[in-house]
Structures are given as C-alpha cells and as structure tokens.
C-alpha cells in the first residue's frame, strides 16, 4: 500500500519535526539559535549509525518507550499549559477582583473602575440571542427529526447546510449582520417609519385648523404649535428640529414641501445603526447550528418504546411530540441553549461592527442602544489602551471573569449532555 507508506512517512516526519522544534526551542533558551540548530543537526545525523547497534528486541522496546514518552509528553504539555494559563490569568488579575470591580463602571479612560456595563451588556446580548435563536433552532430540529424523512433531499440538504454553517467564520456572520440587519432591514424600517411620519404631517397640514391653509405657507412657530396641539410627546423630535429650522429661517414662512425636505435632511438613523438587537440577532444566527445539533441529539435519545406506547394509546403524532418527545428532550434543549449562550458570550467577531461600543458607562435602555460586552472590552483594553501598565490588572481580571463565565456554562452543558448520552446508551 503506497498510500499507507506515504502516510506513515509523513507522520514520522511530522513527529520528528515536532521533536526537533521543541528541542530547538528548549536549547535556544540557553544557546544562540545557530548553535542550537547545530546540536540538533548533529543528533539527527548521528542517530541512524547508533541505532543499528542495538538488538532487534532492544530497538523495539526502545522505540516503544520513546513513542510513549513523546506522545505522553505532548499530552502533558496540553494539560500543563491549560493549568498554567488559568493560574497565570488568575494571579495577575487577582488584585482587581472584588465586588466593586464587578459592579462599577469603568473610569479614567478605562484605566480604573469596573466592568459592570460590560457584564450587563453581555447578559442582555445572550438573553435576546437565546429568545430569538433557541425556539427557532428547537423547532427546526423537531422538524428535521420528526417530520422530514431521513432520506429526503430536503432533509439532507438542510443537515448539510447546518453542518457547514457551523464551520463558517464568525466574522462572516458579522458581515451579514451589518449588511442585512443594519444596512437593509434597519434602513428599511427607518424609511418606513419616516414615511409614515411624513404622511401624518401631510394630513395634519391639510386638516381644518392647520396653519398651512390659505397661502399654504406657515411660520415655524405656527407649525410648532400645530405639533404640540396634536400630540406633544409623539412629535418631540420634530419640535426639536423646528428650533433649528427657525434659527435658519427667522421670520420667513415655509411650505409643507420645505418642511418635509428639512426633516429628511435632519433624519437620524434609529434602527439603521449598530444596536444590541442586531448584534443579538447576528449572534442567534451564529449559534443556530449549535442549538439544532444539540436538540436533534436529544430528540433521538428519547426511547422508541415511549413513542410507540404513546402512539399505541391512540395519541396523534403532534400529541406524541408535545407530551412525550419534547418533555423527554428538555435536557437536550437546555444543553443546546447553554452551549449557545457560552459561544455567544465568548465570540467577539460578529459584534465588532453590529453593536458593541468602545466605552459606554450607561446601561443599554432600548433595543436600539449600543452596549459594552466582556469580550469586546478585553479586545479594546488589549489593543487600544492608553496606559498599558495601568490597564493590565483590569485586563487580566476581566479575562478571568469571562473565562469563569464560559467555563461554568460549558461544564453545565457537558454535565447535562453526559446525562443525555447515558440515557441513549441504555
């Protein structure tokens, strides 16, 4: 088998390379790099000559032990690294970790204070994301497992799409969020709302008590009075804008068309700008495959006998799903939701330009407000800090909080999932 030979050769070469590189890095700490390279070359060149001197049995044992040693060492490297990483981050952030850190906003140009707005922003983000994503993902999974036949082209296509969607880079979702949610949907909503507003204005302008009757021109004060007489709070933005119009126009009278075009020029995006709603919807799309896969697994783990018993009792398919399948797969749905939340809390790329704010001490109040987020806060502190030394403890503490958050979520999900799997095996 030429293929097998080639694979074995590639693998041997790769592991030797790894051995060489790690040896090189180890030596390079003490020696200049060319000396380290020389030592390694010498070892590699000398190895085949010494090797043949051993008996076959010794060679076998030696190679076995060496292999176990090397592979065990690599496994150990991973474990040690993870442990080191956690301890490192905890120790460096420890000095900042306190309740006041968690519950106060950042101050002094992000070099002091806490991360409260970021925590609230992250929480709101994942809550809106779960509200949007988990039901849709669950229902899609139910459709896939219960209604779509396994062999049908549609079901296979959907499954393929879901699987590949899981591998699409997060930044592409961010692009979609910016282009579609903000650029298309948000702008459309703005235009729609504005057009409706202007229709209201037109009908006010032709109504009986309108100042525009007569020569169809009105002074700015008269228009303001008209708005205030109609609905003081509803026309707040327009009344504000009229003040600017008055400063420009003075005593001069304006027509309806002029007022409309002035309002158009003054229009500010409301939905068509980055906001927590669009960021959460983008994130919901990103986590949709996670939910679908996890719920599908749970639904499949509901024992067949239960379903058949329900059917045998005369329950219809929908009744069976509602009172047997869904309650039975509740853990799986929960697992999917938790995994999605954990992914959503850690992912930064999709919200880079769909709603995360650099610095915003006020908590988000509406669906259209921007927000601070833990991961984005780490990114900002790392790359755009004004005073690196002052930010460092804050940075490590923030990272520690984010890590603890994702770990708690992940391990809850893993625990629940292991219960689902155990039932599947039974």
């Amino acid at each position, binding site marked *: 088998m030429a293929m097998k030979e080639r694979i074995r050769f590639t693998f041997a070469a790769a592991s030797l390379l790894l051995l060489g590189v790690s040896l090189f890095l180890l030596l390079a700490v003490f020696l200049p790099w060319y000396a380290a390279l020389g030592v390694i070359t010498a070892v590699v060149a000398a190895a085949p000559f010494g090797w043949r001197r051993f008996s076959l049995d010794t060679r076998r044992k030696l190679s076995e032990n060496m292999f*176990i040693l090397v592979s065990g060492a690599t496994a150990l*490297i991973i474990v040690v690294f993870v442990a080191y990483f956690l301890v490192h981050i905890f120790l460096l952030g420890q000095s900042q970790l306190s309740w006041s850190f968690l519950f106060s906003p950042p101050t002094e140009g992000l070099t002091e204070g806490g991360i409260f707005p970021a925590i609230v922003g992250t929480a709101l983000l994942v809550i809106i994301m779960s509200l949007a994503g988990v039901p849709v993902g669950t229902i899609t999974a139910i459709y896939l497992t219960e209604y*779509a036949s396994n062999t049908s082209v549609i079901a296979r296509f959907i499954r393929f799409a879901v699987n590949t969607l899981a591998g*699409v*880079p997060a930044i592409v979702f*961010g692009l979609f969020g910016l282009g579609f949610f903000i650029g298309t949907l948000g702008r459309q909503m703005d235009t729609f709302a504005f057009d409706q507003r202007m229709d209201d204005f037109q009908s006010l302008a032709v109504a009986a008590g309108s100042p525009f009757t007569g020569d169809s021109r009105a002074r700015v004060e008269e228009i303001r009075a008209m708005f205030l007489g109609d609905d003081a709070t509803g026309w707040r933005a327009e009344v504000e804008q009229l003040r600017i119009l008055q400063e420009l126009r003075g005593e001069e009278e304006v027509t309806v068309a002029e007022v409309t075009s002035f309002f158009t020029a003054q229009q500010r995006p409301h939905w068509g700008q980055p906001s927590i709603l669009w960021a959460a919807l983008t994130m919901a799309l990103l986590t949709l495959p996670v939910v679908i896969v996890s719920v599908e697994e749970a639904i499949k783990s509901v024992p067949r006998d239960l379903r058949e018993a329900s059917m045998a009792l005369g329950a219809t398919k929908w*009744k069976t799903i509602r009172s047997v399948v869904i309650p039975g797969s509740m853990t799986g749905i929960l697992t999917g939701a938790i995994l999605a939340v954990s992914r959503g809390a850690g992912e*930064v*790329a999709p919200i880079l330009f769909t709603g995360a704010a650099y610095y915003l001490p006020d908590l988000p109040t509406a669906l259209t407000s921007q927000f601070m987020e833990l991961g984005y806060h780490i*990114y900002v502190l790392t790359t755009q800090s004004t005073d690196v030394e002052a930010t460092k403890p804050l940075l490590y503490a923030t990272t520690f909080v984010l890590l603890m958050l994702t770990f708690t979520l992940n391990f809850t999900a893993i625990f629940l999932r292991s219960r689902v799997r155990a039932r599947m095996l039974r």
Partner: protein
Amino acid sequence: MNTLPPSEPIPDETPVRPPSAAARLLVHPPLNEGKTFYLSEFLAERSIQAIAFLSIAIILAIFFYVFQEATWAFRDHMQQASSEQPVEDNQTRNSEEGMEEYRPATYGMEEEEYRPATYGMEEEEYRPATYGMEEEEYRPATYGVEEEEYRPATYGVEGSTVEERQRENSISLETSGNNDSVTARQLLLANDTIHGIPEYIWQPVSQVPKYSLVPLFVGALKVTLIGLVIAAPIAILAAIYISMFAPRWMREIMKPAIEILAGFPSVVIGFFALMTLATVVQSITGAQYRLNAFVGGLGMALAVIPIIFTVTEDALSTVPKSMKEASIALGASRWQTAYRVLLPAATPGVFAALILGFGRAFGETMIALMATGNAALVSADIFESVRTMAATIGAEMAEVEFHSVHYGVLFLIGAILFVITFSLNAVAEFFVRKRLLKRFQGT
C-alpha cells in the same frame, strides 16, 4: 375478517369534521392519512414546518447576501456617488439640475444666514483659549525634547519603503477620485511597482486606494499553516496517547483540559498571544517585530488543538477493536499497533481533523487581529507582521462607508472566506467521513 372498532384518539380539542375541501388540499397526505382532522394540530404542524423553512431560508440568505454585497466592489460608482461628489461633466454642469450640486451650501441665502458664528462679536469672545498666555504654557508636551525621544516606535522601521509608497501615490494622483470600481485584475495581480519591482499592495484608505487581495491571502495562509504545523503533531500525538497508552487517570485529566482549551474564547487566546507569547517569542528569537505571523500562528495552534484532538480521537476510537487485537496477537508492540494499524486506518479522520482545523484557523478573526501585527506584507519570513483576510474585515469594516468600493471589497473577502471554509467543510463531511465508514463497514 373481524376488524376492531376504530380507536378514538384521546380528544383534547373539539374535533372539527369533516374538514373543508380546501383544508384537505392543504394537508400533506402522510400527516393526515386516515386520521381525524384537528385544526390545532394542523396549525401546529404547519407552523413547525414554516419556522423550519424560515431558518433554512435565513441560512441561504446569508449565502446570497454576502455575495450580493460583494458586487458593490465591481459596480460603477460614478453615478452613485454623483450626488455626494461633484463630477467633471459638462452635460450635468449646463443643466439646471446639475447646477444645484455645485452651488455652495449658502447659495441663495441671505447674508445673515451664512455669517460666521462670531460675526459681530467682540474680539475677546472668540479669541482662542491660549490668547495672551505665555508661550511656555501652551507649548506641546514634547517641546524641547529631542526628536528621537518622541518619535513613534515604528519610526525608521522599514520607513523608506512606506514613505516611497506615499510619494509615489501623490505623484500618480491624476487618476480620478477614490470611488472607482475595482477589477479582478487589480484584486489579484500586482497593482503597484517600487523601483520597477511589481508589488501587491493593500491600501484601501488613501488618495488612490489599492486593493490587492494577495497580501491578505498570503498572510492568512502563512498564519494558518504555522498554526497547523505546530498544532497538528501535538494534537495527533496526544490523541494517540490518550486512545492507546494513557492510564485511566490521565484520560480523566485530559478530557476536561481539552474541554477547557476548547472553551477559551478566541479573544482570550488573542489577548494571551499578544501579552505573553509575543514577549516570549521575541526574547527567544529576537524578532524585529513583537507581533508577527509566528505569534499569530502560535495563537491559532491553541485554538485549533482541541478541534484536531477531538476529531482524531473520535476517528481512532471508531477503528474496530478486532483490528487492534489482531495486531497485538501477531506480536506487534503497542506502538507498532498504533503506528501501523490504528493510524493508517483512521487516516481519513485525521485528514478531516486537519481540514477542519485549517478552516477554523483560516477564518479566525480575533487572534489574527490581535497578534499578527496587521501589516499587509508579502514575504516568506515567518517573523514578519502579516494581515489576514478575516482580520482585515474586522479592522476596517466599522469605518467603511456604506456601499462604497471598499465596502464591496470587504464583503468580497468575506465571500471568499465563506467559499473556502464551506468547501473545506464539505470535503471533510462528504469525502472523508464516507471513506472512513466504507473502510470499517466494508460496504
């Protein structure tokens, strides 16, 4: 033949029967065959179907949308932009409509309206804050400091070429405004020359924007390959160790360790690469730039190790036990078994792991954005700063003008990323998994 009386379904809602002809037509036959028709059930099932199709429609929409927006790079923006940017065009200049565009904002206004805000004010009112102050008081902080001390850290570093590029840009300024659509030629071929040598330059924000995708692609490939070269041996060896040799306690430790590593948000890995790894790498190698492709690659390796490990371990554990036992019974040592039986048998799975890892690293944004230095250079040196495709989107998308050429090019990069990761996943999914199954099931 005696038939049982038809069993009545548990009535939970008032049955509506018989259904109208229209409702019968709407109902999919398998859902309703020989059964009583319940309106609530019908509605529930239809809405499940509708929502499922909706979510699939959204998935497809992502596809189409990214591609559709990418076309803004190739559209002719001259007409689009004419309302914002004056264009030298005699026809529009002579027409009355065209004139409006060129008129100053104050055209037709009364003098009072466009007077500066300070008109008629006393001189004291609009004096600058520093008026009358001693010179020492409003000097910049760097006054009197030697020039070397307040130069930015990058001063003089490869500066000659950057300055030359800028100079050449200003010379070749006669080409029209910066909203020209790009061509595939400009995206893929050399778009500039320095001392007669063709250069690939990504310089989207300048007088003459240059959009060469080559440095970005090379950068992404470089970081990804470095990441894979580091991660693959570690992850594969560890997977073999865990599935073949490891004592039980080691397995118990390894699983959560890998889970934790997989649970690291990429921004945390990027932060670690930037703060710690970069310093370590620079002190060992003495690299000129603190943030470079190698540091980025190390970060990528951390992100990719869990993927490769998990998939490889999965593939190794699906190798039938009989193969392993046969090998050991024939007198092969455990490592020979692992090396000559298990690994070749699981090769498609290992390939799948590598492909998935490649896809993940290629599209990874935050690590690349934070740890690679973000300089779009084409070179073979792994200690040079690079800029990857995903990082470019992440860094530039927030400042870009909606529906401009730059916007289109960034979406094009997104589309390319999409296509690459999509096809890699498809290969891993279809080709590799099928082959793995075929090998073990002998079908």
